[in-house]
């Protein structure tokens, strides 16, 4: 079951990556990043069966960082939306080369 979990987490991570690459809605891209974090959590939990309880602690820290990141990121999205009236990343081209 551990190997299966690891393959599942690889699949979830890749789906998350794909979402970040092909979607243009900033909030969906952000959700896909959370999906990738969750896939990594699954890897940590599966490998903690082999290595020890420390893997589960890392998951705890990753969840805290994900919560902090969600709060700050969504605040940034709100303030961008106030300015551009959209969350489509193609319209945020101020820093584009």
């Amino acid at each position: 079951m551990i190997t299966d979990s690891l393959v599942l987490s690889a699949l979830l991570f890749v789906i998350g990556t794909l979402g970040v690459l092909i979607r243009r809605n900033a909030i969906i891209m952000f959700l896909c990043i959370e999906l990738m974090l969750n896939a990594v959590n699954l890897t940590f939990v599966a490998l903690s069966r082999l290595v020890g309880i420390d893997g589960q602690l890392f998951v705890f820290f990753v969840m805290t960082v994900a919560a902090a990141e969600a709060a700050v990121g969504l605040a940034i999205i709100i303030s961008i939306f106030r300015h551009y009236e959209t969350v489509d990343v193609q319209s945020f081209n101020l820093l584009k080369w």
Partner: protein
Amino acid sequence: MSDVLFYMFAALALGGAMGVVAGRNPVASLLSMVLSLGSTSVIFVLLEAHFLAAVQVIVYAGAIMVLFLFVIMLLNLGHDYRPDLRVTLWLIAPVAAAGALFGILSRGLRAAGAPAGTDSPVDAAVEEYGAIGAIARPLYTEWVVPFEITGILLLVAIVGALALAKKRV
């Protein structure tokens, strides 16, 4: 029995993840995400990480997803059906890149998970201290400094989010 449950919820987690990427409606994407996170928490239970399964449901599927839902509804994106998938080359290249990434990841992870022993070191700790105690003991002894820094991180995140989302900065 647990294998059947594992494959069932693995399929649900994958389906939810695909729903996030493919969903037109942001709210539908978000609910697929909740499905995916809930299925992952069942898999955590099957991997004997009971405390993390509970935290996953409460913090991830509960708090963080509700935050996302609030923002989607605050910005009134619930009926924003404009197609936002990239097209042609911008669709082919990421799919190829993702396929390559999956090849690399699954190769490495399979190698890491290969020596699947019968008795796990986690079981011994859970047997001795209980599901929560097994995590709490190293958290408050060996990892206490990262734990406190995490508290500071959350404080900074609160202040930062308030400062950013305020009406006039």
